[in-house]
C-alpha cells in the first residue's frame, strides 16, 4: 500500500522536452489510469515511477520516501510490460519465482507462494511450460503472477492489454478490476484507450504533450471536463464541437469570449418535442450504426458533421432530422480550449428559434 507523489517532474531526451513541471499525487490503494494519445509522456511518467527512466528534474516519493536515487528493484514496485517481457528461457515457474530467488526467499516458502499465485491466476497446469508455448492470455497471466508474487507496494501496468484480442481484453479488464479489489494495492495503469481508462480507473489522469490536462474520477471527467482536450478525448463517439462563429440563435450571457460549444452525442434529441428548450440543429443523416440497444447517427449539418447516440429507441429512418440539445447540456470552451462554466443560455428572442 503506498501513495505516490510526483513533484515538479521534468524529463528531457537530449533537447526534447517530454515532460515539464508535472505534479501528481496517486492516492494510496487507488486504481489510477494515465491516459492520453501516443507520445503524450504517460509511459515515460510510469517508467520514471518504476525507476527504469531517470527524471531530469523533480522528486518522486513513494510513501514517505524520496526514491530519486533508489534503483528499480528496491522501490517495491512491480511492473507488467506491454510485451510481457517474460524470460523466454525459463518455465512459467522460473519466471514467477525469479524475483523471489533474487530476494533470497527460502525454497519451501517460494513453492508455497508460487502455488498460491498460480491458483489465483489459473496457471497451475502450465507451471512447467515455456512462455512460447502459452497463448497471449496465459502469458499475460504469467506477467501478472510474476508481479503479484513479490507483494509490491505499487503495481505498474504499461498498456498490458493492448496485445490481446478484443474478447480476451474485456475479460482481462474485469479480472484486473477484481484483482485490484482483492489486493487493495495501488495500481498505476497506462493506456491510450479511453474506454479502458473509463472502465477500469477510479482515478483518471488525462495527459497531452507532457502536461496533465485533468486528474479526476471517471464520472467527473466525463460530465465536467476541465478543457477542450479532455472533453474531446473522453467518450465514444467524441463530444461534438461547434465553432462559435457558426452558432446561431443562442443568447449567451457572458463576458468571456467563447471559442466553441460542445455537447455529448447522447444529449442530442432527434425530432424532440417542441416543449424542450434547447439548441436546435437541422441536418441530414449520413450513416446509421445500429448496435442493438443503441444507435449512432452521423449527421451532416450546416456547421459540419456531428454524432448523435440514442438508447432503446427505434432506428430513425428519416433522412432529414432536427436535433435538439437542451441548454443545460451545452459545454462552452474559451479560445484557448479552457472550459467556461456557469454560462446562462436561452433562445434569442429576435431571431426565429432553431438556427436554420
Amino acid at each position, binding site marked *: 500500500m503506498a501513495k505516490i507523489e510526483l513533484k515538479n517532474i521534468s524529463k528531457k531526451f537530449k533537447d526534447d522536452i517530454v515532460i515539464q513541471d508535472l505534479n501528481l499525487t496517486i492516492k494510496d490503494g487507488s486504481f489510477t489510469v494515465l491516459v492520453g494519445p501516443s507520445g503524450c509522456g504517460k509511459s515515460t511518467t510510469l517508467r520514471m515511477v518504476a*525507476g*527504469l527512466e531517470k527524471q531530469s528534474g523533480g522528486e518522486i516519493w513513494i510513501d514517505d520516501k524520496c526514491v530519486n536515487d533508489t534503483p528499480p528493484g528496491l522501490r517495491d514496485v512491480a511492473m507488467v510490460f506491454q510485451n510481457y517481457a517474460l*524470460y523466454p528461457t525459463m518455465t512459467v515457474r522460473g519466471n514467477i519465482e525469479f524475483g523471489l530467488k533474487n530476494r533470497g526467499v527460502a525454497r519451501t516458502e517460494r513453492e508455497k507462494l508460487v502455488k498460491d499465485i498460480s491458483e489465483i491466476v489459473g496457471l497451475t497446469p502450465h507451471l512447467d511450460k515455456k512462455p512460447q508455448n502459452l497463448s497471449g492470455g496465459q502469458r499475460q497471466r504469467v506477467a501478472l503472477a510474476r508481479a503479484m508474487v513479490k507483494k509490491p507496494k505499487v503495481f505498474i501496468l504499461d498498456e498490458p492489454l493492448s496485445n490481446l484480442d478484443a474478447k480476451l481484453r474485456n475479460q482481462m479488464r474485469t479480472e484486473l478490476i477484481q484483482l485490484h479489489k482483492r489486493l487493495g494495492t495501488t495500481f498505476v495503469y497506462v493506456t491510450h484507450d479511453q474506454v479502458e481508462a473509463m472502465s477500469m480507473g477510479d482515478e483518471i489522469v488525462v495527459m497531452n504533450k507532457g502536461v496533465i490536462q485533468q486528474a479526476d474520477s471517471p464520472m467527473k471527467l466525463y460530465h465536467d471536463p476541465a478543457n477542450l482536450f479532455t472533453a474531446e478525448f473522453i467518450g465514444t463517439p467524441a463530444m461534438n464541437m461547434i465553432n462559435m462563429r457558426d452558432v446561431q440563435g443562442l443568447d449567451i450571457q457572458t463576458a468571456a469570449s467563447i471559442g466553441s460549444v460542445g455537447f455529448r452525442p447522447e444529449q442530442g434529441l432527434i425530432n424532440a418535442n417542441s416543449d424542450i428548450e434547447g439548441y436546435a440543429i437541422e441536418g441530414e443523416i449520413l450513416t446509421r450504426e445500429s448496435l442493438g440497444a443503441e444507435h449512432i447517427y452521423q449527421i451532416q449539418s450546416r456547421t459540419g458533421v456531428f454524432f448523435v447516440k440514442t438508447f432503446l429507441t427505434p432506428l430513425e429512418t428519416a433522412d432529414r432530422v432536427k436535433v435538439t440539445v437542451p441548454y443545460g447540456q451545452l459545454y462552452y470552451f474559451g479560445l484557448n480550449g479552457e472550459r467556461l462554466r456557469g454560462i446562462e443560455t436561452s433562445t434569442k428572442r429576435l431571431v426565429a428559434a432553431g438556427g436554420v
Partner: protein
Amino acid sequence: MTVWEKLRPYGMVAPAIIIFALFFIYPIFYMIYLSMFDWNFVSPTKTYVGFQNFKDLLAEPDFRQVLSNTTVYTVLTVTLTTGIALLLALWMNRKSFFHGFVQGAIFSPHIISLVSISLLWSWLMDPEYGLLNWVIGLAGFGKLEWLSHPSTSLISLVMVAVWKGLGYNALVFIAGLQSIPADIYEAASLDRSKPWTTFTKLILPMLSPTIFFLVIINMIGSFQVFETIAIMTQGGPVNSTNTLVYYIYEYGFRFFKIGYASAAGVILLVIVGILTMIYFKLLSNRVHYR
C-alpha cells in the same frame, strides 16, 4: 501437364545440384575410392591395397601427433575465440563513436587474406627482429621463441587464429545481444537481479543459439586449418604444428602418396562429421530457439 512443366522444377535446381555433385559429392567418393589404393598421381596403374593405408596411418606415431595437434589447436582456438568475442561483444554493445570504432578495428582482420596475415605475424613473431619480442623486452621479460620452438609454436598459431576470428565472432554476438529486447533487462532489474545473475540466467541462455552456431563454425574451420601452417611453420618444428589438412597436403602433393593422403582425408571427414552430429544431437536440445 506438358513435359516442360514437369521438367521445369528440375531444370531450376539443376545448376545448384550439378555444382554440388561435381565439387562436393564426387570428390568425397573419389577420395574414399583413392584411399584404398597405392598410387603416386602419375603412374598409369593403381595398386589396390584395401585398408592397408588406414592401418599404416594409425600405426604411424607422427599421425597420432598430428591428430593431437589438431585437437589441441581446435579446442584452444574455439574456446578462446568464442569466449573473448563474447566478452568483447558485451562491452561493445552500446552506441558510441568509440565503441563503433573498436568494433570496426577488431573486425578488420576478417577481411584480410590469411596469406597476408601469416606473413605479418611471421614477422611480428620473429625471435630476433620481431615486434612482439621487442615489446616483451621493454617490459623486462626474456625473449620468446614463438614459432621456432616446439613448446610455443602451436599456441602461437592459436593466437593468430583467435586474432583473425575475434571480429567476426564478436559481430555475430553483438547481433545476438541486440535481438534481446530491452524490457527483459528492465524486468530483471525490477526483479532485483544482480548483473551476474542477469548474465548467467537470462542473457547466456538467450544467446545459446548464437554460441552454438559460432562453436560449430569455429570448430569446423579450426579442424581444417591450413594456410597459416603452410606459410608460417610448414608443420615444424619437429612436427609440433603439423595438423590434419597440412599432413594430407604434404603426403598428397609433396610425397605423392595419394592413397595414403586420401585415407587421412577420410579420417578428417569422419571426425568432422561425428563432431557435427554430436553437437546437433546433444547440444541442440539445450539450445533455446524462439
